[in-house]
């Protein structure tokens, strides 16, 4: 009278034995019809061109059995619960900002999310127009004329900017033939950016020279620059703000480089540009190329990615640009439309002579940025930037009251990040504050020689007065505990 529960297992059995699979719609009937049409006895036969001696269907010790979506969602919720930075004051290239809810609600729509690169323009107008609007916004923010459709992230964008600058402004031949191209990239540029730039440019005969920074301002020093100007260089990189959160003297640096025949590459935080002078207006002539990390424009922290790199330049450098570019044109009925353009620079046409090997970029993230910037508008972005800056100052006022705490660079002008000098090892302080649920900042000991007691602290618009109070109290307690111990 009672059925056994095993009866209910028949589906599971079906999966194992008969070939059902979550994302494969074929019935057994389909399989038969299709093999008949092909003229093959079984699926095995379809692989008969693969030499038997190299085939292997097992030996996957790290590949577990399938999970249902329900089971995996539960696992992933647990794992997500074991991730996240708590009350976070770390920046250093990745910034916690408010992202309007509408941004990802729209960017996640299937038509954007599951499209490929818009090769068939007529069936991809949504993506193409969004990218073109993104390009326009990046041009506006940087005050330059041409933008590409994104690169991987801020660091690779800098590397591509360097390669681009060297192509546009190659070294003159020296007396002994080819000279290596030199690019000045001050030590105030984010250390990881410098590492990536080195990794990506080292095979093309480019020498990256790293002038030192000023100990008082935490920004590139003219002394440092003058020390390395003995040989010609193709370009100077100017970060704004730099790794320490400090604002460089962009006008002076730009004019200095231009005077020496070099191009200027601005490596900028796009949100900061809502407040600060844009690259196109630096110095007398403006920077030639701007690049940076797009993450502050709508990308969640996400443990480091996906973010996107942006790259803009003067009109005259457009054909040196790496990556995709969208252009506006008309259809045969004279209606406006958008296409990928200037493709002769790219790998799928130019192959070994392309401006870059980049193919897939961070397309969806540019849609994210376009929506994000539209929702914020000029005043929304400006108010967020202002709040970041105001909050940094508010925290500074609090922590400067704590005994033994001061600014590492006493004369630094900061945007939303600053370096604190602590009376003890910053890593230990951070560890203690972690116990209070606070990620207190980035201890610089492992990043910069001699900065063991330095803590890079970032404050964005996401922090309230209470958060800042909590930070100050926790910092004070962490230092005090040392004193008492």
């Amino acid at each position, binding site marked *: 009278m009672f059925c056994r529960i095993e009866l209910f297992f028949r589906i599971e059995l079906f999966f194992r034995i008969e070939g059902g699979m979550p994302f494969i719609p074929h019935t057994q009937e389909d399989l038969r019809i299709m093999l008949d049409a092909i003229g093959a006895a079984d699926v095995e036969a379809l692989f008969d061109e693969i030499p038997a001696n190299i085939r292997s269907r097992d030996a996957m010790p790290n590949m577990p059995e399938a999970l249902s979506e329900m089971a*995996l969602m539960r696992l992933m919720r647990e794992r997500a619960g074991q991730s*996240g930075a708590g009350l976070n004051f770390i920046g250093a290239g990745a910034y*916690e900002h408010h992202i309007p809810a509408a941004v990802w609600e729209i960017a996640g729509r299937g038509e954007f999310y599951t499209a490929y690169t818009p090769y068939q323009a007529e069936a991809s107008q949504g993506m193409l127009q969004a990218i073109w609007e993104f390009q326009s916004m990046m041009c506006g923010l940087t005050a330059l004329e041409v933008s590409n459709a994104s690169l991987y992230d801020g660091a690779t964008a800098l590397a591509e900017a360097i390669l681009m600058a060297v192509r546009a402004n190659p070294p003159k031949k020296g007396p002994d033939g080819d000279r290596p191209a030199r690019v000045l990239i001050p030590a105030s540029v984010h250390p990881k950016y410098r590492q990536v730039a080195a990794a990506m440019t080292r095979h093309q*005969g480019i020498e990256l020279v790293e002038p030192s920074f000023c100990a008082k301002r935490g920004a590139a020093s003219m002394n440092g620059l003058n020390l390395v100007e003995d040989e010609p260089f193709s370009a100077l990189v100017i970060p704004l703000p730099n790794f320490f959160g400090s604002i460089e003297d962009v006008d002076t640096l730009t004019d200095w480089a231009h005077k020496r025949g070099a191009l200027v590459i601005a490596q900028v935080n796009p949100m900061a540009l809502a407040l600060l002078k844009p690259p196109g207006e630096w110095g007398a002539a403006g920077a030639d190329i701007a690049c940076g990390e797009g993450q502050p424009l709508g990308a969640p922290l996400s443990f480091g990615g996906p973010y996107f790199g942006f790259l803009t330049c003067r009109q005259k450098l457009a054909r040196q640009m790496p990556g995709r570019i969208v252009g506006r044109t008309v259809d045969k009925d004279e209606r*406006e439309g958008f296409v990928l353009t200037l493709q002769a620079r790219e790998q799928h046409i130019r192959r070994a002579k392309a401006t870059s090997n980049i193919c897939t970029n961070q397309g969806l993230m540019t849609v994210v940025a376009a929506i994000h910037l539209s929702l914020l508008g000029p005043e929304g972005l400006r*108010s967020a930037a202002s709040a970041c800056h105001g909050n940094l100052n508010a925290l500074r006022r609090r922590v400067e009251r704590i005994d033994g705490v001061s600014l590492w660079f006493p004369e630094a002008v900061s945007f939303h990040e600053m370096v604190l000098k602590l009376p003890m090892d910053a890593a230990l302080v951070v560890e203690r504050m972690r116990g209070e649920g606070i990620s207190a900042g980035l201890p610089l000991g492992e990043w910069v020689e001699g900065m063991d007691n330095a803590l890079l602290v970032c404050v964005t618009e996401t922090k309230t007065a209470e958060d800042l109070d909590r930070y100050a109290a926790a910092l004070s307690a962490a230092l005090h505990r040392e004193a008492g111990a």
Partner: protein
Amino acid sequence: MSVIFEQSQAGRLASLHQNAPAESGEATLPESLLRQSPSGLPEVSELQAVRHYTRLSQKNYGIDTHFYPLGSCTMKYNPRGAHRMAMLPGFLDAHPLADDSLNQGVLACLYELQGMIGDLTGMAGVSLAPMAGAQGEFAGVAMMRAYHTARRDDARVEILTPDAAHGTNPATASMCGYVVREIPTTDQGDVDVEALKQMVGPQTAGLMLTNPSTLGVFERSISEISAIVHAAGGLLYYDGANLNAIAGRVRPGDMGFDCVHVNVHKTFATPHGGGGPGAGPVGVSERLLPHLPMPVVVREGDEYRLQHCDERPGSIGRMSTFHGNIGVLLRAYAYLRLVGREGIARVADYATLNANYLMARLRDAGFQLAFPERRATHEFIISLKPLTDATGVRALDVAKRLLDYGFYAPTIYFPMLVPECMLIEPTESESREELDRFVDALTAILQEARENPELVKTAPHKTPVSRLDETRAARKPDLAFSRG
């Protein structure tokens, strides 16, 4: 449809996203550093922005709306569950420089993903750092270079690629400072082994190959090729673009490759997002292990942590500021957990079944196959040359006309070896009924081309815009909005 800037009105303040600082106080920015010029961002209401981008999205084909048989791109279903999982708050809030102890959950996923990719590729070590296939290629070739350099084998200046290779292969080799030489292809779509033998030598740094090849066939002589290159002192690089055809059936490591990249948006079903973000993890054999790009996730007891450059001095270095496209990798991880060990092999089975079925049906419908003697892998090529000769209708025209029939178009004019070609990849996630509808559409277009070629040459007719003037776009570049 108007662009967002045309909907802007100066002085509109409709944002919900205005923020004030926690308290007022003296600012520290000198006036001379402040921006004076407008940023040009649009001033629209939240409704205007939402409506604008929602409508834009509707003008786009995606897998979620259309069959997308784009050869070489593996446009399979992107599980919504993977999206939701990767967007869980803890993952989104994770700062890449926070202490590893705070990020054990995400690190566990990444560690396991490294292991699964190692299994599938037959490689000894994996780094998830590269942010796209092309960057994976860069990492791979850079590791080969680092290997030779470490052995002071500095005379190796050439990289070989088949003439049918993806453009990224030669472009990457160039970026790594190599000279590229292209190996010819036989009329059966294989690498010309005799030519290869002539080309290898002490100057050979390595060979970049994808197998199945971009011609939609399996490179049968792979073991011989591998032996030839290795004997000459070169290394073999595997472009994982076509891994979906063989995953779980044959591993690059077993074919003799030293180094592999995989495109997670192809084999592992992560969305392509209209051009990215993707991710291009690389796997290597034992001898390239010291050179892996950083970071790599390691496990020590029950703890996971990130290994950085200083722990692997031979590393080619960093590929990104942080750890790569984590959100994309989490989607790939979710996909692999959902299909599991059994499933991943079925993927290759049914992708291959679909391609061979579609090839057989199109052949029967009168289309010319590029390699009629060969099995299709997960994709195959037809040539429309006879149609072009007879009617003037080109592959491009047929592609555009397919849009009218409610299909995205296959890849056209790639690989360049086959004239007027279409590279067609149905993937395993499409049903037989959908393939049949696609055959019906192509058959109908064939008929149209013969009876009314103009109709096809002026296609598409049902899309939001008709055929766009690409020449004008390139001649008079209009690359950004200007209020002028």
